[in-house]
């Protein structure tokens, strides 16, 4: 597929996401009776309607662009960069701003599955169905990934664990490390742990999983989309083998 078609395809997906979002939020209005929250959701719905128009306009601009479109050469830097990061030890803290966060996770997933690793994906405070859809879109085999869902909702295809139950989460991880050979763990996202747990409890959890990773030789990526929280990050960094800022 040429790059202009790829862009139109990506814009179509963006359009569908915006349409779905406003539909889901309209559903929220029927179920939530807190006026402050519904007031804000109504504003978000108006934004989403505007977003639909913006994306439609972008599609129009790209379609109407008459000059021949040339693809700029890729440098191959990204692949090398990821490989270097993954060689930084067994326990790696990955700091990344929220804007490019999901994209970085997808790049790690692609790289790790290329390396024939079985992924344990811990979806903390977020519902796994959305990341699963993106994984499928990027043509990454979902069969290579086991999901642990630590959000409030149940996921029939995942291992469901309450976000505050870190002992249970730790047991599930070691159980999966015994079951699958050559695993890698992606924790999405370690910053959300502090909503439910104290920094002391989180530190113990990270230390325990990191030790297990070194002993059994698997990789754990502690993804964090809040690089600004210096105190939290420096405490966590001390427990990891390396820290990368993407």
């Amino acid at each position, binding site marked *: 597929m040429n790059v202009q078609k790829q862009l139109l395809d*990506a814009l179509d997906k*963006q359009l569908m996401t915006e349409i779905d979002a406003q539909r889901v939020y309209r559903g929220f209005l029927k179920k939530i009776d807190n006026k402050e929250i519904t007031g804000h959701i109504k504003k978000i719905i108006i*934004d989403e309607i505007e977003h639909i128009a913006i994306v439609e306009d972008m599609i129009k*601009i790209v379609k109407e662009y008459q000059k021949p479109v040339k693809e700029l050469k890729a440098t191959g830097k990204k692949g090398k960069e990821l490989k270097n990061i993954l060689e930084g030890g067994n326990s790696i803290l990955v700091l990344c701003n929220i804007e*490019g966060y*999901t*994209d970085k996770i997808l790049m790690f997933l692609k790289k790790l599955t290329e390396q024939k690793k079985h992924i344990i994906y811990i979806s903390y*405070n977020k519902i796994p169905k959305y990341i699963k*859809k993106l994984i499928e879109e990027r043509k990454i085999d979902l069969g290579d990934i086991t999901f642990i869902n630590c*959000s409030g909702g149940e996921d029939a295809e995942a291992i469901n664990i309450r976000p505050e139950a870190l002992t249970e989460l730790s047991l599930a991880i070691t159980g999966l490390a015994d079951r699958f050979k050559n695993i890698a763990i992606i924790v999405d996202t370690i910053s959300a742990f502090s909503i439910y747990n104290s920094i002391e409890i989180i530190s113990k959890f990270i230390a325990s999983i990191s030790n297990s990773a070194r002993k059994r030789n698997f990789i754990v990526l502690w993804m964090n989309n809040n690089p600004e929280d210096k105190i939290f990050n420096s405490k966590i960094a001390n427990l990891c083998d390396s820290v990368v800022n993407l």
Partner: protein
Amino acid sequence: MLEEGQSIEEVPTLGHLSMVEELIEKINFGEPVKKKLMAKINHLKKETLEHSRFFSKEIIKILKKK
């Protein structure tokens, strides 16, 4: 529901936006078209982040009440 809202904003919305941005960067559209498209991307990003922050803040508020 609030977790679902946060998931929608952070995962498919920002995920697709990154992909669109990367593809725009890859193509030599010429400066005026590129500028126009990037301005739209930046606007979408800014509001998506605001939505995500709203859902996240409400989750914390509810947990604190509990």
